[in-house]
């Protein structure tokens, strides 16, 4: 089993890639897929720290993270459907009418 350092580095890279997707893409669906990638990085991280300290707390956190991810996906996709019904586009920039 590799050291936790490898997992933490991998988690950081996955988090960064997901953040790039969330900030740079304009399609609402791809934006939320990117947040799920960020979740994956965090799950790898908590499990790696759990192994570092020899406890199972991180595994339990990972399971709760799955719950949060499911909640987030459900609400976000409901919102996406609602927004798509209004404007018939998935473009996040079409909702920037209030920006200065």
């Amino acid at each position, binding site marked *: *089993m*590799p*050291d*936790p*350092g*490898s997992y*933490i580095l*991998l988690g*950081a*890279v*996955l*988090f*960064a*890639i*997901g*953040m*790039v*997707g969330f*900030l*740079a*893409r*304009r*399609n609402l*669906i*791809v934006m939320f*897929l990117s947040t799920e990638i960020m979740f*994956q990085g965090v*799950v790898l991280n908590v*499990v790696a720290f759990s192994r*570092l*300290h*020899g*406890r*199972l*707390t991180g*595994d*339990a956190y*990972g*399971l709760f993270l*799955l*719950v*949060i*991810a*499911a*909640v987030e*996906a*459900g*609400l976000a*996709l*409901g919102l*996406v459907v*609602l927004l*798509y*019904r*209004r404007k*018939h*586009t*998935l*473009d996040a*920039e079409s909702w920037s009418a209030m920006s200065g």
Partner: protein
Amino acid sequence: MIPYILYVLFALGGAAIYLAMPKPSGSQRRAALVLGVGVIAGLLALMSMHFVAPNSNNFFFYMFAGLAILAAGRVVTHPVPTYSAVYFALVILCVAVLLVIQRAEFLAVALIIIYAGAILVTYAFVIMLAQQSGAVSTDTRAREPLMAILVSFVIAGAIAGKIEQIDAVPVKMTAQVPQAVTDVPIETTLPATEMESGHTKAIGEIMFGPYLVVVELSGILLLIAMVGAIAISRKQVPIEDTGEPKLPVGQIGREVPPF
């Protein structure tokens, strides 16, 4: 020394993602692939030199770690959302394998069932519902990719700058049930052999021991989210005109309700 190599690798990786980002002029996908694979190889080589005990066989870790990074990069850069979802499934499978390598089998299986089985199917449904014909500018033009990459990889670099200090922490593999929630000593302190054989039982004892309240709260959270999602998506909304507004903007809110 390691942080500086990592900073260079992150800069090159950011450049690879920038090249692969969808642009109206067309993305330099081949150059991005070559650069990205090079960066991943460098990252894995660095990991193998500095973080891993020399005798352990970590072939699967490197294989699936590299595949996960590559697939994640493709999710955020692919111009077709359907393919993004498929690559996301690949990320999930790779992360599940990495969790199995860390002996977190239950978490890995739960990840596959919940993500690949439930969440991804929901995404696929929404992609089908919100189908847009042909290539639209939403997918072919990224929004400020340079700034996004800069911000993200600066954060990753900040984490990587501290990564050498992790090895200083002594690693001890005694499986213990955390006693943070209650001061009552918990009888299910697991022997290390149980952690070796499989951690499903151990994690069950944690979830329904000290974390029982949190499990119940998660159930309530899921219920709230379900009610909320139904309430959001059942609401009938008028389709908004994309052209000129019919009424002057000043009247909305006074004589005309905003929605």
